[in-house]
């Protein structure tokens, strides 16, 4: 999967969780840039992405992601 495809999946999952179709994710988007993307919803997001893409993150990864781009990069590495 390419970068943009993964980004699209992440955006779709987050829109569904936050029930907000206006959300746009870019590689440099941080959690604090998206209204209501709080810690509990972040965990829900991670779990939903894992189910959607068939990947599994380590807790240390989940805690370390500084922006969406780092999540995309990690997913790409896991899918290769």
């Amino acid at each position, binding site marked *: 999967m390419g970068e943009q495809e993964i980004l699209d999946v992440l955006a779709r999952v987050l829109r569904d*969780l*936050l*029930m*907000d*179709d206006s959300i746009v994710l870019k590689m440099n988007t941080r959690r*604090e840039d998206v*209204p*209501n993307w*709080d*810690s*509990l*919803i972040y*965990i*829900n997001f*991670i*779990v939903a992405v894992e189910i959607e893409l068939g990947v599994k993150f*380590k*807790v240390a990864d*989940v*805690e370390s992601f500084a922006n969406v781009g780092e999540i995309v990069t990690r997913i790409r590495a896991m899918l290769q």
Partner: protein
Amino acid sequence: MVSATLASKTFDGHDQVFFARLSGDFNPIHMDPLAARKTQAGSAVVHGIHAVLWSLDRLVELGTVTGGIAGLKVQFAKFIPVGSTVHLKLVHRDDKSIRAELASDGFTTTILSLSLGTPKKADGSAPPPDAPRIRLTDQPAVLVRLEETADLCGWVDIASPAQWVETRFPHAAAAMGSVRIAAIALLSRLVGMICPGLHSIFAAFAIDLIETPHHQDGLWFSVSGTDERFRMVRMIVSGAGVSGSVQAFLRLPPVVQASLSDISKLVAPTEFAGSTALIIGGSRGLGALTAKVIAAGGGRVIVTYAIGREEAIQLAEEIHAHIPQGVCDVIPYDARQDAAEQLKTLIADVSHLYYFATTPITRQKEGLFVSSLFDEFIQLYVKGFYDCCRFLGERGSRALTAFYPSSVFVENNPLPMAEYSMAKMAGEILCDNMNRSVGRVHVIVGRLPRLKTDQTATVPPVESGEPLEVMLPTIRKVQSRSGS
């Protein structure tokens, strides 16, 4: 679009009691402020489902929902402290769905999405009628390990008469049916009392309304998955005209600090003899641990509390169960109030001060820097410490050694903790100045790492150090500098 506020409500203690009876959810995080203080919430919080049902009732009453409701999806984003006011706002509406939010103090606490239409027809996959019925009491299930939830399933009976629901939520009951409203209320009981029970956090749920309820008097649930990394539990629910899924977290239980018996094995009985330590904020956490260490070493301790009187008394009882009466006194003290006024009746000649006065340090906030929060932290961690030291230094007959617990956050500077880190840095500068001035107070500053306390409990769990391992050498260092 985000509308102006459609309706507002302040949830008070009466609301808590009423909804606990209606739903059957008596979890202490909602009902017991002292117990709730030891959780991530930091104080008693509103039943999330209560806020959802109140929102539904308002949306129907105000004509925002017209026609039928086919489903409801909810995400709980933040706790709603009891006593705070929530505001209901409409975010989006079209002919298929409505999205609304509840906000408190400028933060979204709850996100609701309603699917409009008619209830689904039952698909024939009825929940097993012979599944066990969960025996319910007013005490929540105490589950600690996630695997304890893995095979849980059964029927949960609706907790209260239909009239209660119809009286409290008449508009929502008229639109969705009182049995379905009772079933939604029952989700609170499911999470708060059964699975995961006592140590739960309700995260989200999504339900479809079903046209022909198979069972009117209860809700069947079954755990469909768990995730050990995040201590997350997923359940499916069905019955009473609804069908869907629920997501919750199993919190770590409140931190229990080392017992006096354990500490006594590490501390010589006369190690701190002759010292009298005033421990501000000593009713729990690191303060309580410090009190036990010094008492175990033969020192006298005066423990202060701002809120936790019962905890402070329990601590004194634990100390006096091992050590002769009189080594531990308990006094009230609010570090935000005048130190001299509160300590003027103190008879003991204090040789050491441990300043653990604190307040919830992880806050919901908007923006990088909130000046009111910074002011609050400065008042507590800088002015409060200085005033206390100054009073004790001027009043006592011997020099005072004080311990100032700073934080590694001063070095790490985590983005959401800016105000706290800045206040602790200011405290360190104050301590340095106090040590450079000619005075009778010497301050020892310790930048404490993240330690296991109620303040640092998070979902998911973050690795934290053992408090005794860090505090024992620190206390020895402070105590070794005796007043003269």
